[in-house]
């Protein structure tokens, strides 16, 4: 059973906060104001009445002046109105205690113990204090709102990433299983090894790639296995080359990021072509920067593919790069003669 968190902005909470402020102010004032060891009845009455005259100043400012005039363009008007309000209410306070109180409390004898300037000062202090408290509360609310917005955005990104990753796996497995099916029909001796390699890949896809980042060396092994699998099911004219010069110590990368490009290279380059086909992979690291280059021949399958299916994998990986490596990558894709080239520079994270 979940418990509802305390709502600090609810009406009851707000009333309690205001009550706490005034009670605290009351007792501080009383403590300073009393003339003997113990506060007498007259001290309580005076303190109470004094605070009652402060209420209009504080609340007219908080509820009317501040929301309407304390903003860009009307700051001067706000300052003028606030000054006017404080002077008028201070004057009323002074007159009440010095002259009018006898009408209300004829049996109590007290005067205004402060000069008019001192009363104005009291009003300024209380109004400023209440304003500062309100502004600090607003500041905390804005901060909380921003935090929640960021949290929501993060959750949204996570959901989106999961959806994108879910799109990769069926895509790959669908193609690979088709290859295995063909090998089984041809009674190919390499089938058991292939199934084992696929099994390793599945383990990686299903379990090891669940984290946000995986070791780069792991991703490279998977990449090599994937290319082997693709070579097995390809015809003899497929030419593959891998140039891997990587110092992957401590480097981590988002899982299944590179494999998507390779998968696309085979899908669009090798598939459906009867002539010379090739996929050349170059992978290098310099410090924490990855230089990934992939080149494949332009495929005949691209010409017959439905427009809405074209480049789905590439779009997915671009979106993932934007989400995971904002401002830390450079991706160039395009045709160069009869080749399709992917060039990716990626600043990876160093993990101890």
């Amino acid at each position, binding site marked *: 059973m979940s418990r509802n968190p305390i709502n600090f902005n609810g009406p009851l909470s707000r009333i309690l906060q205001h009550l706490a402020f005034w009670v605290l102010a009351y007792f501080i004032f009383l403590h300073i104001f009393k*003339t003997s060891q113990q506060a*007498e*009845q*007259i*001290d309580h009455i*005076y303190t109470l009445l004094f605070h009652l005259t402060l209420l209009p100043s504080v609340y007219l400012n908080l509820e009317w002046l501040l929301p309407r005039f304390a903003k860009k363009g009307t700051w001067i008007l706000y300052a003028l109105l606030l000054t006017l309000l404080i002077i008028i209410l201070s004057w009323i306070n002074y007159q009440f205690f*010095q*002259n009018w109180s*006898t009408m209300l409390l004829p*049996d*109590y*004898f*007290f*005067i*205004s*113990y402060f*000069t008019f300037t001192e009363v104005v000062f009291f009003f300024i202090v209380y109004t400023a204090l209440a304003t500062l408290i309100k502004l600090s509360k607003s500041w905390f609310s804005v901060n909380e709102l921003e935090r929640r917005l960021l949290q929501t955005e993060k959750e949204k990104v996570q959901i989106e990433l999961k959806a994108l990753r879910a799109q990769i796996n069926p895509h790959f497995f669908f193609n690979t299983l088709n290859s295995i099916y063909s090998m089984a029909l041809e009674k190919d001796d390499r089938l058991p090894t292939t199934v084992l390699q696929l099994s390793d890949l599945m383990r990686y896809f299903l379990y090891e790639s669940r984290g946000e980042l995986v070791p780069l060396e792991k991703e490279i092994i998977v990449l090599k296995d994937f290319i082997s699998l693709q070579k097995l099911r390809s015809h003899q004219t497929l030419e593959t080359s891998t140039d891997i010069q990587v110092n992957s110590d401590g480097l981590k990368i988002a899982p299944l990021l590179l494999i998507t490009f390779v998968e696309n290279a085979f899908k669009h380059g090798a598939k459906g072509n009867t002539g010379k086909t090739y996929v050349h992979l170059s992978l290098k690291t310099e410090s924490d920067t990855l230089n990934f280059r992939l080149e494949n021949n332009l495929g005949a399958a691209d010409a017959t593919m439905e427009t809405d299916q074209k480049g789905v994998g590439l779009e997915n990986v671009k979106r993932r790069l934007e989400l995971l490596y904002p401002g830390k990558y450079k991706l160039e894709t395009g045709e160069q003669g009869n080749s399709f080239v992917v060039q990716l520079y990626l600043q990876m994270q160093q993990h101890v």
Partner: protein
Amino acid sequence: MKKIFLMLLSGIAMISMTSCVTSLERLVTPDKITTDPRITGNWLNDGEEFKIVPMQQSELVKDLTRFLGKSTFMTTGDDEKDSIFLSKTYIVSYERNDVQYHMIAGLMKTGNNVFLDLFPVAMNDPKASESNPYGFNNDYLSGYTIAKLEMKSNSSLTLKFIDASFITENIKNGKMRVKHEMNELFGTFMITASSTDLQKFVQKYGNDERIFSKESSVTLTRKPTHL
């Protein structure tokens, strides 16, 4: 020497009005002080004679200056203020049991009322030492006694003193807020409020007859010139 003046016994004996309130601070300040020439002269009350003269014309001041030096009258420590006091205050003198009592009186107008404070300044006992006949006594702290002054005619002057019992009773009941010191053991009471607060108090309650003592009201009638 200034402390000597603050420790006078004489005032207590002079006024002999236990129901009057004594204040540590003066009611009449230099910026509020006023004069009324009508109060000067010789006055009578129950067979006793009171003499009121402007301070500068008082023989007492000349005597005290001779005995104590001019500085003893500089009660505020400020030349300008002292000058105002010297020029605008009065000396009230009377004699009882062959002893002369002297008080300084300052007047202040607030609203339609005139208030004065009385400060016991000296008592002149002829039996005392010739070198200092103004037998000061250091046993008591003297203070200002506050009264409302009413002149119904040029020949009648009434002093309505603030009622000590009314003040103390209301303070004890938590119905009056005035800074004060009270000694329950000896039953002594003194107001310690500032001059500003005292002025505000008499301004607000100057017309409230409850704060004045009926028993201690003193009505003086002008002494006929032929007597």
